[in-house]
């Protein structure tokens, strides 16, 4: 029944088209990688250079569309909550079968790699002699295989979305069960928040002073702690309800789609922080802009989340 939904049809169509284009690009990339020698002035090399221009263009546009497709995927599963009994938001739909969480996690990881590829491609094209050409093609091959896995998971997930059996809503999925603490390392919320702000401090220092290794690890740790902090603390101030724990409900209109800003800034901030380090390792060059973007987005994320708490306190005189 979900396959009659407009958003699902659009999603499947675009995914199939992108996969087709990426497959064509993949076949060409394998051929280019086998014979590429930029210093050569043979006919074969000139033809490879000509072909690689088109192939890279195809890859650039399809991967660019993949970036847009993730928020659309989230919008799509949020829309499907009306068809899935028991689901009040995307959380219920994503957890309606075992594939959902793995699929979403894989999509986010692919997005990271896609962003990395786009930036690496940009710096490669800026140079006269394609210094990162082979590296970016190998990265594309990795991304391609992950996208194949993603497509398979997409099919399994969509086929297995139940419309006749109630699923758990976000309160059941993310709520504290009484016995086990869902926050990792059995941290209390106050300890989690302490960790969250301390890790932000680390990302801040790593961005200001451009410490690559510190940026890599602090942003990874910050992303991890930020996810739990948003779900188990800041989210409650978005919903103004201490028992409402959900990363997806804040994507809805009634909360002014604030979830897109929250998750978007977090993703971008940590992406730039992690990528700055990875690209420095790959290219051998320090890319100052990336650190600045990481600083900007992480700070925007922190300010936005903290402002919910502050505004609540100002309005009500108490915390939740």
């Amino acid at each position: 029944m979900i396959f009659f939904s407009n958003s699902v049809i659009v999603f499947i169509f675009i995914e199939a088209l992108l996969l087709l284009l990426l497959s064509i690009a993949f076949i060409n990339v394998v051929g280019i990688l086998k014979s590429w020698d930029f210093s050569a002035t043979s006919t074969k090399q000139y033809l490879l250079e000509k072909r690689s221009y088109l192939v890279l263009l195809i890859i650039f546009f399809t991967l660019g569309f993949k970036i847009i497709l993730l928020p659309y995927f989230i919008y799509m599963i949020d829309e499907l909550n009306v068809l899935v009994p028991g689901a009040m938001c995307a959380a219920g739909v994503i957890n309606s079968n075992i594939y959902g969480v793995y699929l979403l996690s894989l999509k986010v990881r692919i997005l990271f790699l896609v962003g990395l590829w786009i930036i690496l491609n940009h710096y490669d094209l800026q140079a006269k002699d394609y210094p990162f050409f082979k590296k970016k093609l190998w990265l594309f091959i990795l991304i391609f295989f992950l996208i194949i896995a993603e497509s398979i998971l997409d099919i399994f997930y969509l086929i297995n979305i139940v419309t006749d059996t109630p699923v758990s809503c976000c309160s059941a999925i993310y709520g504290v069960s009484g016995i086990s603490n869902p926050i990792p390392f059995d941290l209390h919320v106050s300890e989690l928040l302490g960790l969250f702000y301390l890790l932000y401090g680390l990302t801040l220092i790593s961005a200001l002073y451009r410490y690559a290794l510190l940026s890599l690890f602090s942003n990874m740790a910050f992303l991890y702690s930020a996810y739990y902090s948003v779900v188990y603390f800041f989210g409650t101030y978005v919903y103004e309800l201490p028992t409402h724990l959900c990363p997806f409900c804040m994507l809805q209109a009634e909360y002014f789609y604030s979830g897109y800003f929250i998750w978007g800034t977090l993703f971008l901030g940590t992406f730039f922080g992690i990528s700055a380090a990875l690209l420095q390792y790959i290219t051998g060059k320090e890319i100052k802009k990336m650190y600045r973007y990481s600083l900007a987005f992480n700070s925007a994320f922190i300010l936005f989340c903290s402002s919910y708490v502050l505004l609540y306190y100002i309005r009500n005189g108490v915390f939740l």
Partner: protein
Amino acid sequence: MIQLENINKIYNESRPNSFQALKDISLHVSKGELLILKGVSGSGKSTLLSIMGSLIKPSSGSVIVDGESIAKLPDLHASNFRAQKLGFIFQSFNLFEALSVADNVAIPLTNQSLTLEALHVSVGDAMEIAHISHKKDTEVRLLSGGEKQRCAIARALVNSPKVILCDEPTANLDSINSQKFIATIKELNALGKTIVIATHDPIFETLDARVVNIENGSLLKR
């Protein structure tokens, strides 16, 4: 200044109508040299000139201009290289008829991030050398053939190129204007510019220049 090694150019490669325009050409042009590429229509001289100017890539072989392997440059860098190092004078001028002389001359400087003042100075100097300053505000469509050619020369000079490439520059000029063009070429060569002229016009025999004959895509040995 210009080094061509084993240049081959095949149009429509791997197709039934493929045609080899250049066959294993090796040619060196020294800095400040004036070279005439002489050959009849279809001999491959325009193709060779376009390869020298990075307008097209060879099928094989290397092209080094002012130390840069231009055939290997990606399009963006090739465009930048042309804008900074090369000047072109085409047979059909390739000017924008609706724009003025000054505007046409300024076009190569569009992406150079110059201030308006610096731009005006460069354009003025180029028009001065090409003896077309008196027509700076005139629309190109109102110029004579000779004046259009001077406008094209000014445009070729505005970015202070090290190399000037001319493809049949006198094809659309009468003999008087052709003579004037030759005089201008001598002046430019005296300024230290490396100049390559692809032509079959015998008027260029009056120039004190090296002549290389090209026939059916190959250089003729003297």
